């Protein structure tokens, strides 16, 4: 049994302009000790997937259907009481912006001990010691002194370390990192990624890494999910996704980023603009921007197809190629 099983998740938001189906039928498994990357552009539903797992959606958002199981325990419809025992203890989350996720009016120590006491049966003294220990774990210098300081006395990288310390204080099985380094500089990003990697090895937790940066994915992840317009278009091991992309959107993404090897060539951008979630087409959501789109792409969405045991994609172009390849053979 996988540590986390998400099946056919649908999440929608009610807005004055209509219902936005932000997540449409997302399914994946996360095994213990693995790092899963979710990539996609803004509005692709990657963060909403994470927030659905944690059930921390905005008031107008709702899980419409589907199942989310942690260790076999169903979370959809489980109620706030159950979720309170899951959040922090089993699943923790760190957010993109370390500048706004800490309360500026309390000391770092206060905020850390508060989180620890909420989730574990420690008294104040024990929680304080645990907080100091956690700060030391995330390489914050002079943790005793830092505990008495306020967030404004911390730099961006240091605040993200505090957030990681807080998220890991109760030794969760799963850490969800929602764009954890997007707001940070490159050299600080390298520090934080390095820290997350070493902590992951040390504590053996599973990580869901949400990012739009394919470089971060290549460095961190064992498995990758590529999302577009609320659905998964492709998923597989990192090597399969990077070296054998089978969905036209993934291929387009790979062609459109500057790498070390293509700097004399022109980039091949994906034409058009990301889709409006209020006006979803009947067929494949990527079809309007896809150069290889066929008639069937406009009509019908391609179901998920296994390419090999480590790789699945839902793209008619790929199906057509397979069929043609089969005829030749």
């Amino acid at each position, binding site marked *: 049994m996988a540590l986390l099983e998400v099946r056919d998740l649908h999440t929608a938001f009610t807005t004055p302009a209509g219902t936005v189906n932000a997540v449409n039928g997302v399914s994946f498994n996360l095994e213990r000790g693995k790092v899963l990357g979710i990539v996609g*552009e*803004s509005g692709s539903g990657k963060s909403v997937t994470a927030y659905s797992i944690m059930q921390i959606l905005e008031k107008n958002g709702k899980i419409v259907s589907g199942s989310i199981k942690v260790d076999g325990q169903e979370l959809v419809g489980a109620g706030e009481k159950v979720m309170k025992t899951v959040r922090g203890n089993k699943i923790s989350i760190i957010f993109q912006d370390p500048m706004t996720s800490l309360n500026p009016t309390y000391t770092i120590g206060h905020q850390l001990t508060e989180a620890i006491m909420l989730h574990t049966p420690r008294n104040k003294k024990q929680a304080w010691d645990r907080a100091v220990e956690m700060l030391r774990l995330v390489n914050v210098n002079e943790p005793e002194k830092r505990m008495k300081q306020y967030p404004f006395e911390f*730099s961006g*990288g*240091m605040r993200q370390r505090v957030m990681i310390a807080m998220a890991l204080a109760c030794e969760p099985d799963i850490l969800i990192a929602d764009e954890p380094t997007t707001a940070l*500089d*490159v*050299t*600080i*990003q*390298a*520090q934080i*990624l*390095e820290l997350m990697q070493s902590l992951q090895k040390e504590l053996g937790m599973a990580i869901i890494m949400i990012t*739009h*940066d*394919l*470089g*971060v*994915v*290549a*460095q961190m992840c064992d498995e990758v999910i590529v999302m577009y317009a609320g659905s998964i278009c492709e998923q597989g091991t*990192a*090597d399969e996704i*990077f*070296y054998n992309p089978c969905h036209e959107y993934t291929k*387009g*993404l*790979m*062609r*459109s*980023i*500057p*790498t*070390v090897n*293509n*700097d004399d060539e*022109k*980039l*091949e*951008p*994906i*034409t058009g*603009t*990301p889709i409006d979630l209020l006006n979803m087409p009947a067929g494949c959501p990527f079809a309007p921007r896809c150069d290889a789109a066929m008639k069937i792409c406009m009509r019908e969405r391609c179901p998920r197809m296994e390419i090999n045991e480590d790789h699945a994609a839902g793209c008619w172009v790929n199906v057509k190629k397979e069929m043609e390849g089969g005829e030749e053979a």
Partner: protein
Amino acid sequence: MSHVENLVEVKHLKEYFNISTGMFSSKPLKAVDDVSFAIRKGETLGLVGESGCGKTTVGRTLLHLYKPTAGEVWFQGKQIVTKQDIAEFRKKTAMVFQDPYSSLNPRMTVSDIIGEPLDIHKMYADKQERTEKILAMMERVGLNSEHASRYAHEFSGGQRQRIGIARSLVTNPEFVVCDEPVSALDVSIQAQVINMFDELQSKMDLTYLFIAHDLLVVRHISDRIAVMYLGKLVELADAKEIYDHPLHPYSKSLMSAVPVPDPKVARANQRVVLHGDIPSPLNAPSGCPFRTRCPYACDACAEAMPELKELSPGHFVACHRAEEIN
């Protein structure tokens, strides 16, 4: 170097901001401290560095959006000194901003946004010429003429950035400062805009100063790259050269910190992870500003800022121990 081939030259540029530290006391924040470089006609010079290193300030001071505290700016072999110089200079230069959301006035139509520089510099004889110029520019950046009467909020991020670029280029400038023009855009849109910068450069004979923190983007678009750290220029070389053989310890760690979108390369990558944070520019370390995080720092580094030396042809580096450690 003669002035003929250099379109823009910056000599010992300094920009200090006074920050009040108490009721009666203030302290200079040395945002740009003694920076010199030249940009050749038709080339793209990339300027990289982390937040707070002064790269944006260099761009703005260069265009005289801030009055330089000290130093000289030369354009087409002429030093920019008087008010007239600045006015003339601004006609031939332009700037593209990072945020396509806040840099466009929501109360103005697209054609008025793009036409505003023309109004300011009085670059048309009659209304028809103005409209023609605006529409021609819109076509160049891939906007429809029907878009002219719409407002900025009706457009996506990528299209807004196109409007911003059209506004910058409508006066037919020779030199454009691009300040993080693609960092607010999605990956698939980024490539569209980067390609457009490339095309416009060859069509309109432009010279760019391209400021960005995404090193792969900068490497792709630039001919040469300059690296800044805490207000100082630490290295300047050919784009490929600086990426493949960085000489300054800071550039080394910066280049190795770039996440490469290739799992095998990423796994094999020996990263030089720096410890600690950038010091505050208000309390910059003496001598070389990088010495507090530098693995090679020695006593000499605390005493004096190293000069920018040409170590190999066209490759400049400011490090006391550059020869030793490479």
